[in-house]
């Protein structure tokens, strides 16, 4: 723990002459600990120093001065021991770490109250910054509250906070951040009120140490803002995982976010689809969040500092999506020292390095790549086995060709530069991709059997590739205590290619080269170039205004061809989205009522229309246990993922930009109301929502009665729908045993006129969804279990057949398809178990060893049915999800 000491010895010399302490001439050889050297300098020249005694005692110094100014000596010493200094109040020379800011005062928590006098100040404002104790990274969205009072603030994305209406300077501050030990600070009249620096310690790093408050926090926080959830990447490894710890999978354990999607790590939030969730990674939009057919999310939790999920009712500063917002803040890298970590699991190898660069800059680079483990192969075979059914040839090829290339990788890199205390520049880059190549390329020389002298080369291509690349350059500036701005330019690209064709070239008997190709080719490319600027201004302590402008240029193309001559869909769309917003955060009735209201305006060039989105959300804190919340708002979506319905082989989807014609701009009006009851260790949270949706899009060929002469572009259908539900969360937050019960009662239905004049259940409709999550900590072990039980998902199937006798006496057979999504799979349930052992090598390097069992009782859950039509008979082939899968992973960190 940092202890600051001020030496005040023999105040002689420079003070009398009125000169700066740095100009004092010093002379001699200074050898020993920094503490010793500073003490002797203070004694001999009457200079006052302030420094961290522990740090100084452990730093060795060797420097010589020949009647030189103290400045030169200090420059040399500080260079050696990697410190910096400044002259503070009263001429005290303050030595601080390079990453520290001169104007900040580090505040440490104390176990007991030390000041028992009367307060001297009332109703004042505290400003400060919260950082990680070890890496010195700033911590976003930390809750700063006055103990037992409904007064609180949250740090912004750069770790800064302003807490207004502090009742008195004897109040108690509580800082809580998910995954970190809670810190309590007793204010005294001598505590500074501005530029305080709080250091929080990660809870997972405090094993073997006494936790300051004795509280052990869980890994999820759900009652900070209405409909918002926060997970800590730090504790993810304690949850059961299928090969890789996964932040998106963990969100799926919360009520309101569907878990019955083993093959999608995307977020189905309150009846929304994954494309209706805005995923922002350091400010840029990520359009695809999946690896390996969706079994894993594309985000490496080692590179993530903070994740916030808004299940609904999000503020006007977010836009372009109907359902939810996931705001991911990447790690900035250790600002103090080099650190590295490696995780090895049954799915991927994952590692990162982080380091400071000259005190003002820090960097982090993380890499993850899958390897061909048995688990990877199991999932790969599961999916590619399904694909094989389309072409029996392929299955043969797969067996013949063991040289299948398949992998995924992702890279996250971020550099953060703080030239001074007011500006932060950060460059964040993400790139991830999946490549699956199952092609075979045999070549037959010497001609056909019994044929002429021709040459045949046949090629069977089976290539699936998708990925994202994104980058953002952000500049944040604190202009004053009242004005804070963020500016960002970003780029994001998504591509998805699928080529399943058989084709080849052959030379016919006349010597002409002929080519043939048939199969399926899909190609989807999306570019997003964005510029954003946001500003927040505190008008009064209880009123903060935020305004912003955003411009996004999208270029999206999609082609779907059934062979090299028949292109079914060919869409190229470009569009500019210009948005601006204004929102106001108001605290009323002594801070009990919080209102955030505002308006978002968007101009979308393909429709040349203006869209208005008014939104309001509020919380009312009745007392320290009860809180009511409500939100209402309108949402539009301009870039959307369209489902291409395929009853027989499973639907696929593609990104497209809305237009005035076939793909209208989607729209949703939403209402939410809820109540939370919270004690120190328990939270009961209930929220009910209703969402009305319009202009949802689908693509289907099911009404194309004559495939030979039709315009495939005609088969885009738009419809309306609604989603409603109740989310219930009962959480035990503290103690050795933590966990929660999440339950959702929901209904999602749509009506697309082309399908008929009726409402049908949306593909992601799940009536009941129950999740039990428990985690028990025993010494250095953590044991956890999750159990998921959900109603089966709806699906469309061939329903039956009939015959009609036509006028000429011929009898025709017809196959009839059920109403859209009129059937349900059996209920889904699954138990996952995990245990994690935390230890340190040599007392410094934290390690964890995790064992997990996915689908512990080997339940056969149906994924989808495949149908084959043979002689007008329908043959159903159920395809199930994964069975029992054991996994082991190990991770080690330098510090």
């Amino acid at each position, binding site marked *: 723990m940092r202890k600051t000491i001020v030496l005040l010895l023999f105040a002689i010399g420079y003070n009398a002459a009125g000169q700066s302490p740095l100009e004092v001439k010093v002379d001699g050889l200074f050898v020993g600990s920094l503490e010793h050297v500073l003490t002797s300098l203070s004694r001999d020249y009457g200079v006052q120093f302030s420094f961290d005694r522990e740090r100084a005692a452990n730093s060795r110094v060797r420097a010589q001065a020949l009647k030189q100014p103290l400045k030169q000596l200090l420059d040399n010493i500080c260079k050696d021991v990697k410190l910096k200094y400044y002259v503070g109040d009263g001429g005290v020379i303050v030595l601080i770490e390079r990453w520290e800011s001169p104007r900040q005062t580090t505040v440490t928590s104390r176990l007991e109250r030390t000041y028992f006098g009367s307060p001297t100040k009332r109703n004042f404002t505290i400003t400060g910054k919260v950082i990680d104790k070890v890496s010195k990274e700033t911590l976003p969205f930390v809750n700063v509250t006055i103990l037992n009072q409904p007064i609180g603030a949250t740090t912004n994305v750069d770790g800064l906070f302003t807490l207004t209406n502090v009742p008195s300077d004897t109040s108690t501050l509580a800082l809580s951040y998910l995954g970190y030990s809670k810190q309590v600070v007793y204010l005294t009249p001598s505590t500074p009120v501005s530029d305080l620096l709080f250091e929080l310690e990660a809870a997972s790093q405090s094993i073997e140490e006494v936790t300051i408050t004795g509280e052990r926090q869980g890994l999820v926080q759900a009652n900070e803002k209405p409909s918002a959830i926060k997970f800590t990447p730090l504790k993810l490894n304690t949850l059961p995982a299928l090969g890789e710890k996964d932040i998106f999978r963990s969100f799926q354990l919360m009520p309101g976010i569907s878990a019955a999607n083993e093959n999608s790590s995307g977020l189905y939030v309150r009846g929304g689809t994954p494309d209706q969730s805005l995923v922002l990674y350091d400010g840029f939009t990520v359009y695809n969040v999946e690896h390996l057919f969706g079994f894993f999310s594309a985000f490496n939790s080692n590179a993530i500092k903070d994740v916030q999920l808004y299940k609904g009712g999000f503020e006007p500063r977010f836009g372009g999506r109907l359902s939810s917002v996931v705001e991911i803040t990447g790690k900035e890298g250790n600002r103090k020292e080099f650190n590295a970590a490696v995780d090895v699991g049954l799915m991927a190898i994952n590692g990162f390095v982080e380091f400071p660069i000259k005190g003002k800059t820090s960097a982090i680079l993380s890499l993850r790549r899958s390897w061909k483990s048995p688990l990877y192969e199991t999932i790969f075979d599961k999916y590619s086995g399904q694909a094989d059914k389309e072409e029996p040839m392929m299955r043969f090829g797969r067996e013949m060709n063991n040289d299948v290339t398949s992998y995924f990788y992702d890279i996250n890199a971020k550099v953060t530069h703080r030239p001074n205390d007011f500006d932060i520049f950060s460059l964040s880059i993400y790139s991830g991709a999946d490549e699956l190549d199952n092609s075979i390329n045999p070549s037959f020389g010497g001609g056909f059997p019994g044929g002429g002298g021709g040459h045949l080369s046949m090629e069977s291509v089976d290539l699936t590739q998708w990925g994202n690349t994104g980058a953002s350059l952000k500049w944040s500036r604190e202009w004053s205590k009242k004005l804070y701005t963020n500016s960002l330019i970003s780029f994001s690209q998504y591509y998805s290619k699928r080529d399943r064709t058989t084709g080849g070239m052959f030379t016919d008997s006349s010597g002409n080269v002929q080519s043939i190709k048939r199969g399926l080719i899909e190609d989807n490319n999306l570019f997003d170039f964005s510029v954003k600027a946001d500003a927040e201004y505190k008008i009064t302590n209880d009123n903060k205004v935020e305004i912003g402008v955003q411009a996004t240029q999208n270029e999206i193309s999609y082609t779907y061809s059934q062979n090299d001559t028949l292109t079914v869909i060919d869409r190229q769309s470009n569009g500019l989205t210009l948005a601006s917003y204004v929102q106001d955060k108001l605290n009323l009735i002594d801070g009990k009522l919080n209102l955030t209201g505002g308006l978002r305006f968007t101009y979308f060039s393909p429709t040349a229309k203006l869209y208005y989105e008014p939104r309001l959300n509020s919380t009312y804190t009745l007392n320290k246990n009860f809180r009511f919340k409500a939100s209402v708002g309108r949402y539009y979506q301009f870039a959307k993922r369209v489902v291409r319905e395929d*009853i*027989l082989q499973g639907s696929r989807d593609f990104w497209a930009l809305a237009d005035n014609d076939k793909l209208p701009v989607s729209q949703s009006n939403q*209402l939410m*109301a*809820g*109540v939370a*009851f919270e004690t120190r260790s328990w939270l009961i949270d*209930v929220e*009910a*929502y*209703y969402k009305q949706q319009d202009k949802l899009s689908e693509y289907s*060929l*099911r*009404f*194309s*009665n*004559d*495939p*030979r002469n039709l315009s495939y572009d005609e088969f885009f259908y738009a419809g309306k729908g*609604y989603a*409603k*539900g*109740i989310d219930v969360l009962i959480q035990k937050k503290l103690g050795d045993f933590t966990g929660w019960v999440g339950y959702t*009662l929901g*209904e999602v*239905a749509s009506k697309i006129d082309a399908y*008929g004049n*009726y*409402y*049908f*259940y949306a593909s992601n409709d799940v009536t009941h969804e129950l999740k039990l999550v428990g985690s028990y900590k025993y010494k250095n072990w953590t044991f956890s279990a999750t159990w998921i039980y959900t109603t089966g998902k709806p699906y469309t199937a*061939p*329903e*039956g*057949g*009939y*015959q*009609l*006798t*036509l*006028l*000429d*006496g*011929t009898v*025709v057979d*017809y*196959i*009839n*398809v*059920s*109403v*859209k999504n*009129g*059937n*349900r799979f059996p209920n889904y349930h699954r138990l996952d178990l995990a245990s994690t052992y935390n230890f340190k090598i040599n007392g410094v390097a934290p390690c964890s060893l995790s064992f997990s069992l996915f689908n512990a009782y080997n339940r056969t859950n149906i994924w989808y049915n495949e149908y*084959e*039509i043979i002689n*007008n008979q*329908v043959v*159903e082939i159920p395809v199930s999800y994964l069975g029992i899968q054991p996994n082991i992973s190990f991770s080690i960190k330098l510090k």
Partner: protein
Amino acid sequence: MLLIAAGLLFLYACHDVGVETADANKAVVEGYMIAGSTPTIKITQQLAYSSSDTVVNPINNLNVEITDGEVVFILSNTSDGIYQNNELQVEQSKTYYLRFVYNNKEVDSQTVVPIKPSGFTASATSIQVSDFTPGSGGGTPNRPEPVSLEWDNPDNDYYLVVVENAEADPTPIFDDDTTSTRPPRAFRNSPTQTNLQQLNPMSFSYYGMHRVILYRLNPEYATLYEDNGNSSLTLVTPPGNISGGLGIFTGISSDTVMVRVYK
């Protein structure tokens, strides 16, 4: 707390539209409203893939009614799955409505009976086709000119030509005693929106008098002839105009010319 719970449940329950789910127990209607005749409406049950049944089940004892907008005709269940009312004579240009309740669901449909085709002529009243009896000797069979059929069709309506043998015991053209199955007595071309069609002499299977019937169709019937393309690659909704059920209820009018086929 209870009040809050009630309020939230109210919010959940406030919008209830009734969502459709699959029900394979559907009625299949086959009803041709041919001008000048008494219709026969056939109602059967869809054969569900989930059931073990392999034969089509007729649906009996339904209250089937057809109205022309003025008179309501109640159809009686004359035999398995067959409904008729002899008082109902289909008239051209009239709109007929079919309605019954099956499986607690209203099944209905409507159709307009087209006006009888006009100007229907054939280019020949007889046609000579050579004998193809195996072993009857060599030589090239004669290739007679096709019979051209023409009618008026200013509005590009749908027409269907069906040719059927009118003899009681016709003689086949291709007399092959080795097989016991005989060729069908009727043949057709695909529905067309033109005003002419040719009858290829090779299409005839029998000698004797043939009825060449020109049906004037509604589009709903014409779609039944389209290849629905169902295969393992696509699955499409079958054509039909029955709301709440499957099949067809369609008005038809016709005109007939006779053509004789001789050796």
